[in-house]
């Protein structure tokens, strides 16, 4: 195993909550996502059909938790969560798990907050890898946590 690439700056980042991201759940966003994934269920396209089934509004399909509100010019670098360098160029999504607590519907505004929970290093077939584990909480406008995501990103 090569020397560790986990620096003090990275260790210090563990458990620190990043800046919140605001995402709007819109009817158009829901339909666009549902169509891209190939859904045919009317609950994702027709507000009346969704309400008939007891939802507050047009239902968001799994994996869609709103469209992040875009700000021209991007974020102030000081605001960005990551304050360390990773010495690998290539990146892979290693896996994702969502837990859903509440239905998400058009009109909801979701604030997500993410933190790193762990770094792991492994010698893979493609060379040394750094695996970053992250947990993200998604909170609705009324303060209710609607979903939780755990995922890992592989840099190699």
């Amino acid at each position, binding site marked *: 195993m090569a020397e560790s690439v986990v620096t003090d700056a990275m260790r210090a980042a563990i458990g620190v909550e990043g800046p919140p991201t605001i995402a709007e759940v819109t009817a158009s966003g829901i339909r666009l996502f549902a169509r891209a*994934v190939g*859904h045919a*269920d009317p609950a994702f396209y027709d507000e009346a059909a969704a309400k008939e089934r007891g939802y507050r509004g047009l239902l968001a399909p799994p994996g869609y938790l709103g469209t992040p509100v875009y700000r021209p010019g991007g974020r102030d670098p000081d605001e960005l969560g990551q304050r360390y360098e990773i010495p690998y160029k290539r990146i892979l999504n290693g896996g994702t798990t969502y837990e859903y*607590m509440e239905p998400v519907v058009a009109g909801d505004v979701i604030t997500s907050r993410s933190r790193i929970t762990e770094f792991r290093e492994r010698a893979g077939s493609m060379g040394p890898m750094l695996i970053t584990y992250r947990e993200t909480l998604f909170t609705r406008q009324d303060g209710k946590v609607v979903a939780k995501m755990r995922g890992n990103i592989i840099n190699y």
Partner: protein
Amino acid sequence: MPLKKSQLKVGDTHEAVVVDNLTRTQIVQYAGASGDYNPLHSDEVFATKVAGYPTVFAHGMLSMGMTGRMLTDWVGDGRLTKFGVRFVSQVWPGDTLTVKATVEAIREENGQPLVDLAVSTVNQDGREVVSGSATARIDP
């Protein structure tokens, strides 16, 4: 129609094709819908000449979304309480994906019947692209 506990037993399987001959257009649609504009997924010149891939490939989250579609079609909308995947191999334009869910456990939590599923998505060559698990609320 939501699934009923009385209709299920451990070991039951359910299978569905979620995409037949995946198009680059669908990958681009997903880029727009998700806001993930990484050029590996939408720019053929970048993917091949700069990044060295044979062509563009689907976002992992698109494969997850298509896998999830089979689940919501089967267990009913608003029923998934947990859905996790690992991205095992890449999904390319032209791929046909089949999702298979296997009932691992039927249980109750605070009076709510739940089903635990093992989920596997394979391409037309039988190669697994997504491996995962899910939990859904079911009716008694």
